[in-house]
């Protein structure tokens, strides 16, 4: 985004995608109208398939495969947003999701041997959880974006692991090692939202909302400014944009996505313990985003689907004891040979068939 149209951060902007980079939009006259204008036949087909899916799949495939993929995809989407549009790779997105989960357990209804449970209704607990997560995300963002970009990955990893140990050690509020059990979505309109099909549609609705939100923000002035900062922060600063404020806001927004995913995750599991935010789970979100590809918001969902399928069925194909070896090798191969993940493979395939060249990825560029 080299063409700064206005000196104000929120001013209207026109853009020309002259910088080779991660997701960039071609031309966007009006963000709101464009959402409908961009609907294609493939969108309709995918949506129809998603709506029919739970009626043909078994409850296991509806709940544990599809719903879990979508909610993990939502958490990974928050990382895709930060990394793809903001150039900031955060390893603490699962921590943010975990904070939302803990908040739902503490403010809402749950069971625990030692921690605090306030037992407030869900319509109070869930908004509190999301706002609290966004605040923490903004704080982590503020701590990590004030230095060089590559530091973000180190600082967010350190903060994430430190918060894991805090959850493990604090019994008076966070219930320590055992965490909180018996957390369920509310019974609303006489529907048990935890049973496979309703939970599937709940997750689908929120995943679509998250997907749409990311696409919308990417075309809104804020998103364009963010991509401009990703590509050349100094120039954007010179144009009068507050670089730090934009980056912190991006962290807060991504925190909101991760928090929604975290609320769904805690409802899905029915429990939250420090293990949910342990290091391997922080890394898993990165693995999901990288496998899927960080060039387009659909990537994280693809990655999550592959990850969940592997996690469930690896034991039937390979030695489960070596699951981490399989996932680690897959991750490494993707990073080495297809930095755009599965999306990159797909676009390369299309390029070979002659429909245009793939764009380089945010991963391949100088840093994040």
């Amino acid at each position, binding site marked *: 985004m080299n063409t700064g149209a206005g000196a104000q951060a929120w001013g209207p902007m026109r853009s020309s995608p002259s910088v080779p980079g991660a997701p960039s939009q071609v031309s966007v006259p009006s963000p709101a109208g464009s959402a409908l204008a961009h609907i294609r036949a493939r969108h309709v087909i995918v949506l129809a398939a998603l709506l029919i899916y739970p009626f043909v799949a078994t409850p296991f495939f509806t709940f544990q495969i599809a719903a879990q993929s979508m909610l993990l995809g939502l958490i990974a989407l928050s990382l895709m947003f930060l990394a793809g549009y903001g150039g900031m790779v955060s390893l603490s997105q699962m921590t943010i999701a975990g904070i939302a989960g803990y908040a739902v357990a503490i403010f809402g209804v749950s069971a625990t041997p030692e921690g605090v449970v306030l037992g407030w209704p869900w319509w109070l607990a869930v908004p509190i959880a999301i706002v609290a997560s966004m605040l923490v995300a903004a704080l982590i963002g503020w701590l990590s974006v004030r230095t060089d970009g590559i530091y973000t990955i180190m600082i967010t990893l350190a903060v994430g692991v430190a918060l894991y140990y805090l959850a*493990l050690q604090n019994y008076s509020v966070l219930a*320590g090692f*055992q965490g909180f059990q018996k957390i369920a979505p509310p019974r609303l309109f006489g529907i048990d939202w935890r049973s496979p099909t309703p939970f599937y549609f709940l997750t689908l609705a929120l995943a679509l909302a998250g997907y749409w939100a990311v696409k919308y923000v990417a075309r809104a002035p804020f998103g364009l400014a963010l991509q401009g900062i990703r590509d050349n922060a100094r120039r954007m600063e010179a144009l009068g944009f507050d670089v730090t404020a934009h980056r912190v806001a991006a962290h807060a927004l991504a925190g909101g996505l991760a928090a929604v995913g975290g609320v769904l995750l805690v409802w899905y599991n029915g429990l939250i313990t420090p293990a949910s935010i342990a290091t391997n789970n922080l890394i898993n979100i990165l693995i999901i985003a990288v496998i899927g590809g960080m060039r387009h918001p659909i990537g994280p969902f693809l990655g999550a689907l592959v990850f969940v399928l592997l996690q469930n069925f690896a*034991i039937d194909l390979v030695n*489960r004891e070596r699951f981490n070896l399989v996932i680690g090798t897959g991750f490494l191969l993707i990073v080495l040979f297809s930095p755009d993940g599965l999306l990159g493979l797909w676009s390369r395939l299309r390029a070979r068939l002659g429909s245009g060249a793939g764009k380089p990825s945010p991963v391949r560029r100088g840093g994040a």
Partner: protein
Amino acid sequence: MKSNRRSFVRTAIAAAVLSSLGLAAQAQETIKIGVLATLEGPFAAGGADGMRGAELALRERNGMAGGKKVELVKASSNAQPPVAVAAVRKLVEQDKVQIVVGPLSGGEGIAVKDYSKTVPNITIINGSSGAQATTLVDPSPNFFRFNNEGAQWMVGLGEEALKRGYKKVALISEDYSFPYSQVQGFMGQYCKLGGKVVEKIWVPLGHKDFSTAIARIPADIDALLVVLGGADAVNFLTQYEQAGGNKPMIGGSITVSQDVLNYKGKRREALLGTLSAGPNADAYDAPEWKAFVASYKKNFPDGYPSPGLFAVNYYINMKAALDALDAVKGDLSDNQSKYRAALTKLQLKGPTGTITLDHNRQAIGPNFVTEVAKAPDGSFYNKVVSRVEKVDQRLNLSQAEFDKMGIGTRDNPACP
């Protein structure tokens, strides 16, 4: 796992064919039992040994129970509760097992017990998990546990410590729920009989340097109660020796286990005479235990020299699952109600003695107090000091005494 599973299924089929020639019609019907253990992560070795125990119970009866062929379906977790629940859900909904044996660790046990309430037509029998709350708080009608839990494993130790003149002890332990249970199991009797635990040093999980914790140990104690496992136990023992520590030690159930006694490094003479307690003892000389060890060694030449805690627990729970199948002749109809009644009534003849269930479907079984001794070949082992029969979940205290105490936490119980 596939190759293992396949070869195992093949063995089971071969065994079934050999043993039931002519009963082919009946043997056609299979009962599927899922086994969940931690085959990944730091508990992988323990999980693998648990699997061996479960397989052994089935191999001993040629893959048959209740006149039907039994197929084992393996599942794995990494000791994290959500992963365990996902694995059990896959066993139940995708692999269509009728019975699940597992999981291995405490947090997983509570989560799987909560899950079991959502699948009332499946029976879940614990693997090796030892959290008190699993059966004590809000028990589930279809979750059974035939192994004693973490607090029960320490019963008898307090009495023995006092017998040796250890009137004042300090505690050093990892800071999470399993050691809380272990400490309660020790203190229940110890405090009642007049012993004092003057200082409790809880070391956060993941903290490997014990030097400062050692500096906090008071000087005027008779012995040190050490409830640490694996690398933490080894690190502590090394550092305590280096710091010139010389108090006698009392160990938790996993503190002086085989893997700690014979870890890859130097042996510590200082450990000789260390008391500990647990549900099994390598040197127990009852014929059924010896037969069990011999069978384990024969079936798993690549296993441990002697079956570990996890192998014993998985064996016991799997044996209960199969014995009850025998009792109902493989009849799992009517939402398994007959099968569950048979489990509840079961007098399980395990390698360590007879085990029955209480009204929460929790084991009442024997426990051992042991002492580290040196074998003629120089290796260390745990010799049996005493054996406590029928240890229940109230730690053999009266209901009122136990209710007053509640479940063990950092500060509970206390007798400084």
